[in-house]
């Protein structure tokens, strides 16, 4: 229980400051609704947002999964072929500098309506951080360990799978934890700009019809989902990384 009280206290202090600002600033509920008002909205609006949350979760996890598979395979290639890496790197960096609000309308024109353009927005947001952390992890492999395996007669594939990949896992999981949050934010942002369903749609309709309590309720949901993702990544990391070493 002891490990939970500090995070709980930090969350509670956020709520307290928020309540204080909304009560004493005189801004009123239509500019900054209090946590109490948002809490009530969260409950009464549950059928609406949970309905929209479903498609956000599916798209976020699908986009993340595609990025992870892509990063794992391309990462190994880049690690083994430095020339390819030098060719690809500028493109990858460029992909990070295109603002989503510019990219998304173009994707709609190129790919049509539906889930595909949103999926691309999510992939663009999380492919790069996953790849960079994974390649960095591969590079951090202890050369002595590689030499040892080679002297024992291990081939290239065996070295990649048996030595380099396990060595890269801690770095990969560090990237994974933050990237899941990126994926979720990118998905909601895309939906906000224009989609048929999703938490971002719930947020846009609420914001544009002047219901800040609903907007904050949606942000609360996004934050909670991020926390769950983060804890999920930590749990997976324990399972894979620690399990490997101990």
């Amino acid at each position, binding site marked *: 229980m002891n490990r939970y009280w500090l995070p709980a206290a930090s969350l509670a202090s956020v709520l307290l400051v928020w309540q204080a600002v909304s009560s004493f600033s005189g801004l009123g509920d239509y500019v900054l609704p209090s946590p109490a008002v948002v809490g009530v909205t969260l409950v009464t609006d549950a059928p609406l947002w949970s309905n929209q949350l479903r498609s956000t979760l599916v798209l976020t996890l699908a986009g993340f999964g595609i990025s992870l598979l892509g990063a794992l395979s391309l990462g190994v290639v880049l690690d083994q072929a430095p020339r390819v890496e030098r060719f690809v790197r500028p493109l990858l960096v460029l992909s990070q500098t295109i603002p989503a609000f510019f990219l998304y309308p173009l994707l709609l024109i190129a790919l049509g309506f539906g889930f595909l353009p949103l999926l691309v927005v999510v992939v663009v947001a999380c492919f790069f951080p996953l790849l960079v952390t994974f390649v960095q992890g591969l590079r951090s492999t202890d050369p002595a360990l590689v030499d040892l395996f080679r002297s024992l007669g291990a081939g290239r594939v065996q070295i990649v799978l048996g030595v380099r990949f396990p060595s890269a896992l801690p770095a990969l999981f560090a990237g994974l934890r933050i990237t899941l949050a990126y994926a979720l934010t990118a998905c909601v942002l895309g939906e906000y700009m224009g989609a048929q369903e999703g938490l971002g749609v719930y947020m846009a309709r609420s914001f544009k*019809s002047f*219901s800040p309590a609903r907007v904050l309720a949606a942000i609360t949901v996004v934050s909670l989902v991020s926390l769950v993702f983060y804890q999920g990544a930590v749990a997976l990391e324990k399972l894979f990384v620690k399990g490997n070493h101990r």
Partner: protein
Amino acid sequence: MKLAKLLLAAAAAFSAIGASALDKTTVVLDWTVNTNHTGLYVAQAKGWFKDVGLEVDIQPAPDSGAAGLLASGRADFAYSYQEEILQSRAGGLALTAVAAVIQNNTSGFAMRKAANIHRPRDFEGKRYGGWGSPLEEATLKTLMKADGGDPSKVQILNLGEQDFFAATEKNVDFAWVFEGWTVKEAEVRGIALDYIDLRKFNPVLNEFTPVLAANEAFLQKNPAQAKAFLAALTKGYQFAIAHPDEAATILLQAAPELNPALVRASQKFLADQYQAQAKRWGEFDAGRWNGFQKWMTDNGVLKVLPPKGVLFTNDFLPAIR
């Protein structure tokens, strides 16, 4: 109405031949779904598009997306506004306005009572919160000069994504809003606003906004589909005019996250505005269109004259009964 019936018969005959071959028609919204779009949602909910042989797909799009989506053929119709049609044309995209969704420009400047602004010259020394378009500056200049004010004394700021009520708490004194949305929301909340109607101070500023736009090539290729679509859409808006409360309920069913009190108040206001003084819903007045276009050119808002082409037309609207 005769034309609509004829089309209906034609469409029925067509669908009888092609089994259930409905023509797919994609419509793109210009903003988050709101009461400007009610007629579309009514026609969809009532099955009036199906009745004329169309399967209509309503797609929300990024605020800046409509022109490109129409030009690329991803969408057949889009909500737009006169300025966007003209600027897109100047940029080489052949868009045509086919219906005036709200007959008059119901947008204007809104401010809290405390800002003490009653007419354009009062803007002097005040902070305007906008979105960074040359049209805004030109509008402020035109209105203030005619009213004996000095436009250089207005501070123009970018509002970004702030909503009107948050922004006017502290950061700005006035902003450009739709009367049927923000001003109605103020009434719902009991916030006292002043509102400056552009048209009252300068009738030329009666821009057509919002309008329904289509790609000119699409119209030439599919005139029957365009007419069928507009016949059903007209019915949708006529229903919204006659039954604002029921229309609001239909919109809220499609978008339950919208603020219901605002939607109902807005719907009531717009019932008298969709068609207003026009002979039929959707009608364009050429004099008005050209007057606003000339003002845009004269004031440097429209830098390239649109090449030849149909900028707006009443040809696809159902005939007047």
